[in-house]
């Protein structure tokens, strides 16, 4: 089970992907813009294992928000999903950052979510705040 924050503004894509991730046993928080994502991260008891981030968003772009996320929570693995052709400089988001060009085969994305990221594997779980 992975804790996933899913940042996607397209409602159908977001709800569909969230439902598929949940069916695989992952815990998913859905947010539709960077502001919501930021608010959730700030109040979440545990950092997410994975952030699935759409790039083209109203307001702050997903790739820009992800830079901030990488700075504050370097152990959260980032998976970009976008209709754009590639993302230059994906290395900035860590060696295990991934990029999926929409529309993607869901199995590939689920595999990527299930992968043990280099950094995630090393991490010792933080105690839950009660």
């Amino acid at each position, binding site marked *: 089970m992975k804790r996933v924050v899913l940042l996607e503004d397209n409602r159908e*894509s977001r709800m569909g992907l969230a439902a598929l991730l949940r069916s695989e046993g992952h815990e998913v928080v859905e947010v539709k813009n960077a502001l919501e994502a930021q608010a959730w991260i700030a109040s979440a008891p545990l950092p997410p294992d994975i952030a699935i981030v759409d790039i083209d968003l109203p307001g702050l772009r997903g790739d820009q928000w992800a830079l901030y996320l990488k700075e504050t929570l370097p152990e959260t693995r980032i998976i970009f999903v976008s209709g754009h052709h590639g993302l230059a400089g994906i290395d900035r988001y860590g060696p295990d950052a991934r990029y999926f*060009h929409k529309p993607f085969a869901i199995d590939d994305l689920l595999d990527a979510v299930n992968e043990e990221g280099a950094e995630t594997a090393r991490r010792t779980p933080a105690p839950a705040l009660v």
Partner: protein
Amino acid sequence: MKDVILSVFQARAYPELAAMVRATIPHVVERWILLLKDRLPVADELTLTQLRNSLPKTLGQLAVALETDRAAPTRELMQDSEEHGLERLRNNYTLVDLLVEFDMLRPVLIEAVASELKRDLELAEFTALNIGVDLVARRSVVAYVSKQTQQLMQASHMQSRFFAFLSHDIRGGLNAVLMNIDLLKLDLLDDPRFAPALEDLESMRRSILNTVGIMTRYLEAERLRAGAVQPRFGRVDLSRVMADVDGQFRAAAAAKGIVLVHEVPLKFQPESDQELVSMILQNLAGNAVKYSTRGTVRMRAVQDPARGDWQLVVSDQGPGIPPEKVSMLFEAYRRGDTHGQSGLGLGLSIVDHASKLLGAKVSIDSKVGEGTTVIVQFPARPVPS
């Protein structure tokens, strides 16, 4: 930059010639308009009226420029000529139409001035008049072409942006559809009554991915053609690339009874752009599997240890390509014998463009009835052309 025509034109003053040009303006305008009506159908009434208004000014400026050896009047003439060229572009004249205008002005003006002078023109006067017309024509044409080039570049840029936006939006929308198809499949999975529906959903899913695949190829070809792709050189993991492409086409090949094999020298990781090499191999392997109906499709990387250069070789035992059709295959949207296969005709054009970016050369060796071998010859170190 020194303007040669300008310096010749300014070498001396031609006061008598200038006076004659001025005197003949009404006659030249009427003669020219008659000729234009006759030979240039694109010149409508509005254009002719514009000419009646603007030509006297141009000829007047020409007279002033001839009268003196100062540069200012000549520059003014050149500037107005540019405006004339731009006006013609707005009037939908072709470049040839624009040149015809000046071809007709030249003899009309020279004949009128000679007849007004009541003597033969001196060589210097004849030259000066010709240079005057050339100056006006050249400036008009340069302005016309510069503006037209700028418009074409803008249009092409807009088109690229339009494609990018369109692709982005279509991808986003189709992604939502795919997610929901997958979700629906999941809901229906446990109930055997829905087995046929599941098959339909799977076929919808494949059809969407296939459509997107075609769109992607089209956009890739456009990006390559527009020069929007910059190679990023590094070590290419050829074994990985070959295995990926093999995996991509294995099922399609097996369905047609074709054996797909690949060979890479051990630990061979040449310097090139992995994404473009992968694109080249995908297109070549895709073509080979698509057009073959039997035999083996072989993908090989061949290294020349002495020279350091290397080749990608993709061979099939398909129908082969007649020699006269081979060169045509590299053009986008053109196909040889299609053998009943659908397609856009972009594969080899993509291969050719991508290879050029990597400093590689593509050659085809094909025999009808025996098969085709495509060889992409890569340099030891990438030398982009």
